């Protein structure tokens, strides 16, 4: 067989550097296409797409209370995206943030329920913060240890750890921490176990913004951040350079889990004021999208998490005002994410058609 017949109809070619304007154009186009495609499910359910988009923006940004609600949704998304970024940079696929958030929330809740009477406000919050970080970190350390020691598959391992964590909460909810018997509800936190609000939103937003800077410096300006990047590029290079890969994996996962744990603390203490098995509410998974869309850039994560929060909050108002089923909003979110992620694909790769290539070869 000749080389020519084996050439497939379409091939992917990695692009070299693309002009900034063109990159920008592709990204804007992806959003526009997403907005147009998003009209289809709306039209199918008999909703006017223009007013629907209007309601989404109004419902998320038009009033101070709505902006507060939107920021409240963005906080855990941003925090958790920051948490998983170092793992992904290292090409360690931590999809267990959901469980790490949950375990952080469990630790914080323990102190909120049983220490609220005996410990002053600030001290209690500090204890909850530290124990939540430790619990999330230790939960993440388990799969990291197995990866470092026996090279187990971290994707499956971290995923399974999620269900264990959620199961633990379900048991606590119906068992030792249950309030009224049979209710499956853990009592609401007392005021001393609640995060204070700053500008109308729980002060978790200050914590995550601080984390944005810390993570940026950690990833770009420290030796540990450099080690993570090297392992991500090539484990063998890292070994050759004398890095202890197993140790770095465990250290990075602990940090990642600890931040997720802090997110869990902020969710229970700042937003929910109680614990239930759905405490992480998919944040651990959605934040993967946030991290990926931001190309692991801490500052970009602020914007991406806000966009997702705007859609989520706006979709809620969409349901209230226009009786659009909540699932339609999920579909629109999915379309938007799909288009944005595929735009990254077209920025990094170009499609080469067989015929065109032949012409190029002739020329």
């Amino acid at each position, binding site marked *: 067989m000749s080389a020519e017949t084996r050439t497939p109809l379409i091939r992917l070619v990695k692009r070299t550097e693309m002009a900034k304007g063109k990159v*920008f154009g592709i990204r804007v186009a992806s959003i526009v296409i997403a907005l147009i495609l998003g009209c289809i499910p709306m039209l199918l359910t008999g909703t006017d797409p223009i007013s629907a*988009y209007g309601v989404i*923006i109004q419902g998320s*940004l038009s009033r101070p209370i709505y902006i507060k609600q939107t920021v409240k949704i963005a906080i855990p998304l941003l925090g958790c995206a920051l948490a998983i970024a170092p793992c992904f940079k290292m090409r360690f696929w931590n999809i267990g943030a959901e469980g790490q958030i949950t375990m952080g929330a469990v630790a914080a809740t323990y102190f909120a329920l049983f220490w609220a009477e005996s410990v002053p406000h600030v001290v209690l919050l500090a204890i909850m913060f530290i124990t939540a970080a430790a619990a999330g970190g230790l939960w993440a350390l388990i799969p990291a240890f197995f990866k470092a020691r026996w090279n187990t598959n971290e994707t499956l391992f971290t995923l399974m750890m999620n269900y264990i964590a959620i199961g633990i909460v379900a048991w606590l909810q119906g068992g030792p921490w249950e309030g*009224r018997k049979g209710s499956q509800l853990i009592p609401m936190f007392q005021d001393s176990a609640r995060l204070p609000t700053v500008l109308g939103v729980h002060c978790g937003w200050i914590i995550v913004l601080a984390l944005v800077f810390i993570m940026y410096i950690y990833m770009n300006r420290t030796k540990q951040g450099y080690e993570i990047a090297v392992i991500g590029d090539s484990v063998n290079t890292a070994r050759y350079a004398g890095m202890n890969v197993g140790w770095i994996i465990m250290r990075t996962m602990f940090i990642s889990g600890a931040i997720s744990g802090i997110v869990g603390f902020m969710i229970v203490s700042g937003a929910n004021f109680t614990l239930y098995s759905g405490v992480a509410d998919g944040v651990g998974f959605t934040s993967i999208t946030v991290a990926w869309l931001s190309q692991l850039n801490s500052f970009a994560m602020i914007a991406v998490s806000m*966009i997702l929060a705007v859609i989520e909050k706006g979709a809620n108002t969409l349901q209230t005002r226009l009786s659009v089923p909540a699932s339609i909003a999920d579909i629109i979110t999915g379309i938007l994410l799909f288009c944005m992620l595929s735009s990254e694909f077209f920025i990094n790769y170009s499609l080469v058609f067989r015929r065109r290539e032949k012409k190029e070869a002739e020329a």
Partner: protein
Amino acid sequence: MRKITFVLVALMLLSGFAFASGSTEEAAPADPNTVKVGLLCIGDENDQGYTYNFIRGRDEATEMLKADGINVEWVTKFNIGEDATCTDANIEAAEEGCQIIINNSYGFEPFMLEVVDEYPDIEFISCTNCASAFDGRDNTHNAFANIYEGRYIAGVVAGLKLQQMIDEGTIAPEEAVIGYVGAYSFAEVISGFTSYFLGAKSVCPSVTMKVSFVGSWSDATAESDAALALADQGCVMISQHSDNTTPATAAQSRGVFHTGYNNDMTTIAPEASLISTRIDWAPYFYEAIKAYVNGEEIPQDWCKGMADGAVVMTPLNEAIAAPGTAEKVAEVEAGLADGSIQVFDTSTFTVGGEELTHAFALDTDGDFTADSEEAVYDGAFHESVFQSAPYFTAQIDGIEWLNAAY
């Protein structure tokens, strides 16, 4: 940085839509005879059970109010979780101009109470729960109905059928076993299945009951599985305290009988389902909304029963019910109305082999154990007298709890 600029531009694009669309902000209606009411639901109408029953009540009440010249604008939100999404839904409804906000599920209340102080002018109602009425706030309310009366009658219908099967020799007296699919081992459920059992026992003395808890108010598959398992363990009659119709279809598939809750299930399982009982929320919605419009207080803790139309029986499935059932049902209904029949008559059941002589109704110190108001007096346990939400939690003899983990 490029990325951020890009995202900002995208946001501006989106806000362009908002202004171009010209959709207006929502607010409370200006007309004094129009009232905007939020109804937050745990499921949606497709459950053909719990939430469907609320929607039915909503629509009936709207018609009743319209006849009085009151227009209701409903904002109904479906599939709200018993979690912080409920807090957000209450904020959302309040901000969208609702003047009354009704929370339809038990587990909504603590999350609703997080919001109420921010909106002192809005009336918040938590159906089936018990904290709002006693929290000292004027704008929080509870409501429930004496559903135990309806369950007692459904139990009578079931008992008559079982007795008929015994009399015809289809089953031995000791094989008259009821299987009950319950949500949680929780007062409302315990009160419900106990009243049902006592209804059956009043006409079929040899009856016993097995209760299986599924750990969810609404989980169609788990409810079905529990019903099938109960049938396989020899239960010949299935009843339920859960939101779906799957126990009815499960009963039919095993060739056993069934009585339902929330909705008439005879069309879904015509060979199995005998009758259902349901709360009719229309009288309450009517009363509460009318009071609001007239500037009167919405009752803090509303509870009415069969006599007031708040609890109703669905049509009896005459084709499979035991002969004489309709007459007996009418007789028991009259007895309940005039007080000659007490559902929890302490002479009709025992707890640990002894008659129940003492049980508290209310929890006043917040430790989730009842500690005040004696509910046992005049030879009966008085349910839903001291508060609308049920408080009967005794485990009576003849009812076996298969799993109390939930």
